[in-house]
């Protein structure tokens, strides 16, 4: 895949090295302190996100096109090879779907107790957002948060970024490091980090998938589809 989702794939000697000190958010606020742990990463920006999107599209095509061509050649060669041609087409369709499924996993609710601590955490989370976002979270467990890079849907173990226009979604794998936190506190951690430094947040998080919103929509759970539809609608207006 074009974008590494593993810290191990990059080194401090990477030519795209960006210093933590130079990584202050554009709005002039403090940079996310977690950037110190990923000093070798290029700070996310509009151009970088567009490039990442294009690379994912290219990668998807590179996976699918050879199988489609093989299917055409096999089907043209002999009718007896038709089953193999169909198998090639299934591969061409299936591989991008597997990547989309990996991306959609970031919207899955995290496990954890849903008892009193979760109710307390939910109360705090509710105080941090407006009525619309609170309502949507109540139904979908995803928090809608408009940003400069697009419209975010923040979950308990990751975030989806719907880019302006609503056609592309970036799926980020990112989480609170304390596993003992109740689910809503995990979400609050991500939400507050996002609000502190959106660009820093997109830099710290690992990009699990970038692709068409329809492709992600098919792979997320039913409640998350509603949240994604709302985010896509909002993103179309950006």
């Amino acid at each position: 895949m074009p974008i590494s989702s593993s810290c191990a794939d990059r080194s401090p000697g990477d030519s795209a090295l960006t210093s933590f000190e130079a990584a202050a958010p554009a709005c002039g606020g403090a940079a996310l302190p977690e950037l110190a742990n990923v000093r070798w990463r290029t700070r996310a920006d509009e151009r970088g996100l567009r490039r990442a999107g294009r690379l994912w599209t290219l990668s998807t095509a590179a996976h699918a096109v050879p199988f489609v061509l093989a299917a055409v050649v096999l089907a043209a060669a002999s009718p007896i090879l038709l089953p193999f041609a169909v198998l090639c087409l299934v591969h061409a369709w299936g591989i991008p779907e597997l990547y989309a499924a990996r991306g959609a996993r970031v919207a899955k609710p995290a496990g954890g107790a849903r008892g009193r601590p979760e109710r307390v955490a939910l109360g705090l989370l509710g105080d941090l957002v407006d009525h619309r976002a609170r309502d949507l979270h109540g139904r979908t467990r995803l928090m809608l948060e408009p940003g400069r890079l697009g419209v975010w849907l923040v979950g308990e173990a990751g975030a989806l970024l719907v880019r302006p226009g609503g056609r592309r979604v970036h799926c980020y794998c990112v989480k609170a490091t304390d596993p003992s936190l109740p689910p809503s506190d995990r979400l609050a951690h991500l939400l507050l980090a996002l609000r502190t430094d959106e660009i820093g947040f997109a830099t710290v998080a690992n990009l699990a998938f970038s692709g068409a919103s329809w492709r992600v929509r098919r792979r997320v759970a039913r409640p998350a589809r509603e949240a994604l539809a709302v985010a896509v609608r909002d993103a179309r207006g950006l």
Partner: protein
Amino acid sequence: MSRLIRMDRSGHTTVAEWTAEDPASTEEAVAAFRAELDQGYFALVSHGAGSAEQVHELPLDADLVILRRPIAGG
């Protein structure tokens, strides 16, 4: 009454409460704030949708200061 809260396994815990008119409560809150930062927490003040500010000193005029743990790419 301003509050310093820490997100933890209980949902959240109120670490300190203070009013600007009460120097004793302010001093206690500042000490508690520093102790939490020493434990590795980050402190921030949410300004509503889309904006939060990381703070390194206790903002005495804030209504609510929240302590959070670090996040990391999964």
